[in-house]
């Protein structure tokens, strides 16, 4: 305890230096937390799971995947057609509809890509929406119920609402971008809770399908995309064994030959998509983060070295008073570690709150992820980074401090 008091007193002795070192640590831990938050999210998204995971059925060869909607029902059943075939636990179809509220002057702000799906699947099949806090869950359930009653409903994320300058309850007309001449009149029935879905829009698939039927009735010919409207099917399976059986059922089924389809885990699909960002991710992991950590170590090392040099006499006095070398080493290390850990903790906490609750995530353009959030374990990262960089930065100065020779120091003073 006396040691801790001494360490704190030493830190307070040169407040400017301690504050500058602390601020440097806070700033650099902030950047490294952002980088690691993105990397850990991507790693988690690409990590294969063995229980209760999702697989994606898409067109086998082409991107973007465009399958006939006739595939939907049987794919949702995992192509189970024989007694003994296994079925997935749950399923969800996705059709992408791109539209703009201003066809004459289309911009990023007045355009959106909506997922047309069965709204009842939103809470069971979409990541994070199945584990919402009670209030958010109730609001989303209410919006879903409205959409089920009114198939012209649309649920929007808060950023999308803001960019369209609309509020829940208002109506919008979307002019088809990819579905040319398929214009949709929609009522905003709710919004997603603040989350990764801030830029997402969901519409009722029945409305899109009905609009395609109406097009055919009016023009006498099917819409060019009518037989390519199903983009992907999500299937939830309980384990890898079921996944394998369902995959076999789908891949051997003669129903999916033109176009052929493939079934892969969501992790595998995401990994393929992220391959284009391979070098960027490598740079973030092996260049950016280490360079920040080394810079941080240098900043701390500099401060502690200066401090040790300035306190040669004091360290010599401590030795005369009976302090052992290891105690002096601990004293100097303790100052650095306390600053490092304290600043790392403050930085990570502030980053967690600011990014998640004030800024609504990190908007970084990797693949289709709208925003990245700081996970709770980032607080531990902050502490660890502060601890490790402070240790690395201060071990050499602390070692030299414990080797101070009393006779040399007093000879200089004399």
């Amino acid at each position: 305890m006396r040691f801790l008091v001494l360490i704190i007193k030493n830190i307070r002795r040169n407040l400017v230096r301690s504050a500058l070192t602390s601020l440097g640590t806070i700033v650099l831990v902030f950047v490294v937390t952002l980088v690691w938050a993105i990397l850990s999210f991507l790693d988690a998204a690409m990590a294969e799971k063995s229980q209760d995971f999702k697989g994606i059925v898409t067109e086998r060869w082409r991107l973007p995947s465009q399958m006939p909607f006739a595939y939907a029902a049987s794919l949702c059943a995992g192509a189970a057609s024989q007694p003994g075939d296994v079925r997935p636990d749950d399923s969800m179809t996705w059709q992408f509809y791109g539209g703009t509220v201003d066809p004459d002057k289309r911009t990023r702000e007045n355009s959106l890509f909506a997922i047309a799906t069965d709204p009842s699947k939103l809470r069971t099949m979409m990541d994070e929406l199945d584990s919402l806090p009670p209030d958010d869950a109730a609001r989303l359930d209410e919006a879903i119920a409205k959409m089920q009653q009114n198939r012209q409903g649309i649920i929007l994320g808060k950023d999308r609402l803001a960019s369209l300058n609309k509020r829940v309850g208002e109506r919008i007309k979307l002019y088809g971008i990819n579905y040319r001449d398929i214009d949709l009149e929609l009522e905003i029935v709710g919004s997603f809770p603040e989350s990764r879905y801030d830029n997402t829009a969901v519409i009722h698939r029945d409305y899109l399908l009905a609009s395609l039927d109406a097009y055919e009735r009016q023009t006498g010919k099917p819409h060019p995309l009518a037989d390519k409207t199903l983009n992907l099917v999500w299937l939830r399976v309980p384990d890898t064994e079921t996944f394998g059986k369902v995959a076999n059922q789908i891949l051997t089924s003669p129903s999916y030959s033109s176009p052929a389809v493939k079934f892969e885990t969501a992790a595998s699909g995401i990994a393929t998509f992220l391959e284009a960002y391979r070098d960027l991710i490598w740079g973030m992991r092996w260049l950016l983060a280490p360079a920040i950590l080394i810079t941080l170590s240098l900043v701390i090392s500099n401060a502690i070295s200066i401090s040790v040099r300035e306190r040669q006499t004091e360290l010599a006095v401590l030795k005369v008073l009976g302090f052992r070398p290891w105690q002096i080493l601990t004293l100097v290390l303790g100052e650095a570690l306390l600053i490092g850990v304290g600043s790392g903790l403050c930085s990570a906490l502030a980053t967690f709150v600011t990014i998640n609750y004030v800024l609504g995530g990190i908007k970084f353009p990797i693949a289709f992820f709208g925003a990245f959030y700081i996970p709770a374990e980032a607080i531990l990262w902050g502490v660890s980074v502060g601890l490790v960089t402070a240790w690395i930065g201060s071990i050499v100065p602390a070692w030299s401090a414990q080797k101070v020779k009393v006779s040399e120091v007093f000879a200089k003073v004399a």
Partner: protein
Amino acid sequence: MVISPALLIPLAAVLGLAVLLVRLGRIPFGYNVRNLVVRWKTTLVTALAFTLVIALLTVMMAFVNGMYGLTDNSGNPANVIVLSEGATDEVFSNLQFTDAGELENHPDVVRWDGRPMCSREAYLVVNQPIPDAPPGRPKRRFLQLRGIDDPEISARIHGLSLYDGGQWFSTAGVRQLPGDSADAGAAPAIEVVLGEGIARELSRDRRAEAMPAARHGQRLDVGEVFALGNRKWLVAGVMKSAGSTFDSEVWAKRSIIGPMFGKETYTSLVLQAGDGAAAARLKDFLNLEYKKAAVQSLLEEEYFASLSQTNRQFLVAVIFVAVVMAIGGVFGVMNTMFAAISQRTKDIGVLRLLGFARWQILVSFLIESLVIGLAGGLLGCALGSLCDGWTANSIVSSPQGGTGKFVVLVMDVDANTVLLGVLLSAGMAVLGGLLPAVSSVRLRPLEALR
């Protein structure tokens, strides 16, 4: 070497400041240098922090430059790209065969060898299973195929040529491989020409036993074969495509790969006009007057410039990271300079008694800070410049969304990047040195000497 006007003002400011400091400073420059040498450990550690920050900035900017290089250099000012109306990207575009015939005969489209300079293209992205993918790596990759009717015309329009030993794919677009017998039912291999970047990427799939026979160690080359969609694909040539988006594309006969992957229409037509003015006229005609088909047209340069959305987002991210890291560096240099001042309190007192004014002492400490910053910064620029010419994978995309294009970019450390590094290090040094320098001038001579 073109220096951005946006950097010229800060450059002039920094140069002006440096000249002013040296001219006004009465304390010999050698005094500052000697002090830095005496405290060499602190100087070195502080300069190293600068080095890392600036090296990182240089590498990140080189990456973004590479992306801009692709989108800015891929287009020809005389080319007009035609897509179906409403298509946000080539991959979503559908143009009928009849439209192509009509459009390529427009009087503004130039002719070569009696043929209209119109590149009829079907661009598609397909999944390629990766044979023997190492554990932990994806088992598939996205491959960008461009189906072409007449490769010679398309190459002329896009300004591409082949490396020696290569040839454009034949009129049939397929060739029987020596070991495969047509009688035994083996389908002939599909002839392709590869962009240099994708040739490099595909060479990663080579088995170890194939390496000794490979003509080129770093990329697939003429005569080599890869697999896709239950067919063999034979490399007929490798394009000199570095620095363009075509670098990551596989070109093959459209009439073969279109039906194979379900793309029965063209996705785009690239028309070549006589010059930029004729191209602009052609574009306006197609957008405003042409009513026979629902098409939209853009100058090819505009089209590629529109793919710079991701570049902009990455640039913002780079600037953000660099600025935040620079702030960390500023705190580091502040520590150094405060320590320098506290160690030299008596020096300051003596200087004041010798008649040096407060501002001259301030200038002296600022110069010292600038020397540390610029030395570290220049070293950082040199270190970061080592990445010049490296290749990296990325994506370019338009604000309208879509899948974007998977590209192989060449990292580019240009004069602006180096200048930005120097300016940032100078800015960090001045900011970090200013507060300590101001505190030094507030010392009273007699107190300082006590």
